[in-house]
């Protein structure tokens, strides 16, 4: 089976339960958005998948093979996060060479080309780079490593709007040339919404949603109207529909609904699409 399978993963740190029985699959050649509030367990999940942390329970398999302490499986993955694991005194160009040593598929020429595009000085030591350029350095590694599964944990941390846009464009370009599985964990949902195909929303260590972006957005909506009309509509919703939040301004009420196609919407109520960020806020604020 192609893809990464995460099965019944639980992880706790002292008295904090970071992940609770998480089961999900990252299919091959898809772009995932791993969304969650601070401390939701996104980074812990990615660290466990990439063998940096051990789970208390459960296992991860890559292409059907358990990945823990398995060099062959680990070579198919690359995780970048806000933590720089390269020696601080190492220069950027040397880091490219070292990565090439361990990942023979690493495209050094592409890394140099991207460095020029991002105006990253490859002669500089990694520790002397600003927060934004450290993110750029890691993103360049991830975009040049050419492995089937790449995890981007907060890839745009400290990046200005121009560099964020450039990163997303390069990611899509790379994906369209040679598809791979990209998992992007970020707080900037609006920006990433048009890049991702699949959405995984995690809250307090549990998976709330795991479906395609299009289906999640098609089946979610905002219904607005007078309070009484909206309340009676909500009461008539089928069991599969779920009200995930509401706002009241004056005599008007808006409810955010998942799993409702709006086919039985009475007159006087307005149905409007909900964007991913709004959906995320409503889902994770409860």
């Amino acid at each position, binding site marked *: 089976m192609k893809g990464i399978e995460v099965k019944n993963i639980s992880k706790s740190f002292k008295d904090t339960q970071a992940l609770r029985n998480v089961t999900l699959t990252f299919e091959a050649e898809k772009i995932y958005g791993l969304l969650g509030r601070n401390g939701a367990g996104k980074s812990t999940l990615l660290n466990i998948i990439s063998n*940096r*942390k051990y789970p208390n329970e459960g296992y991860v398999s890559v292409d059907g093979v358990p990945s823990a302490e398995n060099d062959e499986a680990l070579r198919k993955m690359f995780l970048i996060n806000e933590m720089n694991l390269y*020696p601080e005194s190492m220069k950027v160009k040397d880091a490219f060479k070292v990565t090439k040593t361990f990942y023979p598929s690493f495209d050094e020429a592409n890394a140099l080309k991207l460095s020029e595009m991002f105006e990253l000085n490859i002669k500089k030591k990694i520790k002397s780079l600003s927060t934004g350029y450290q993110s750029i350095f890691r993103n360049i590694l991830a975009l040049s490593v050419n492995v089937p599964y790449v995890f981007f944990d907060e890839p745009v941390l400290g990046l200005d709007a121009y560099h964020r846009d450039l990163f997303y464009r390069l990611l899509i370009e790379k994906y369209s040339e040679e598809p791979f599985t990209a998992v992007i964990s970020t707080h900037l949902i609006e920006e990433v919404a048009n890049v991702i195909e699949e959405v995984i929303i995690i809250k307090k260590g549990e998976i709330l949603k795991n479906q395609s972006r299009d289906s999640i957005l098609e089946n979610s909506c905002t219904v607005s109207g007078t309070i009484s009309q909206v309340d009676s509509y909500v009461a008539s919703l089928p069991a599969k529909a779920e009200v995930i939040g509401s706002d009241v301004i004056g005599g008007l009420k808006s409810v955010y609904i998942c799993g409702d196609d709006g086919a039985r919407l009475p007159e006087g109520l307005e149905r409007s699409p909900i964007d991913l960020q709004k959906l995320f806020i409503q889902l994770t604020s409860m």
Partner: protein
Amino acid sequence: MKKILKYQCFDLAKALVVYYLVILLIISLAVIGMNVAGGTERSGLGFSSEFFCLIVGLCMFREYFYLFMQNGVSRKKIFAGACMCLVILSAVMSAMDVLALYILEALPAANVSYMTISSTLYSGYVNNAGPVLRLLVELVISFLVMYVFFVVGYLISICFYRSPKPGKIGIAVGLPLLVVGGMPVLMVAFPEVFARLMSFFLFIMGYSDTSSGNPFIGMVTLIVLSLVITGLSYRAVKGAQI
């Protein structure tokens, strides 16, 4: 595996070259100084190699662990690579130290001697042994002692990395205090305990029945010690997380 080993060996070779250049400089200055001033000097400079091994061992876990984990290497490979690198470094350093010992002995103008652990600990034995046996004992004892120092440093650094903050403080403060302060205190306050510890140390190093000591018993002890500390290090590395 080859890649990990190659990277570490090349990286540590720089430190090794600097270390031996410094040693060469000190020896040269000592030889010139003693020739000008007259007299002879028995130098314990060779012992500094063991401290160099300890320091390198202390420094080499975290940086390589991070780098290799970032680049998809498993802990068992990281550990195996580190051990092989330490074995190679121990072999190179023991050869260098023994070479320094022999060169300084052979040079007529060199009135400075270069002492190593083996030449000091088993001086009675090596002085009476044939040249081949002497060389063998010098090399093997030096190699094993250096490996033990390396791996002790490595184990301490893993324990330090894995410990919570109070444990880190305990290791950082406690260990130097124990070595620098603990031993003299033990020697003065509890001379009997210290004497027993010393006689136990001498016993396991082969000083039970001969005045010159038996280096082969010392070798067995050092091999056992190396295996035990390496085993403990493996367990510690296996549990390390980022």
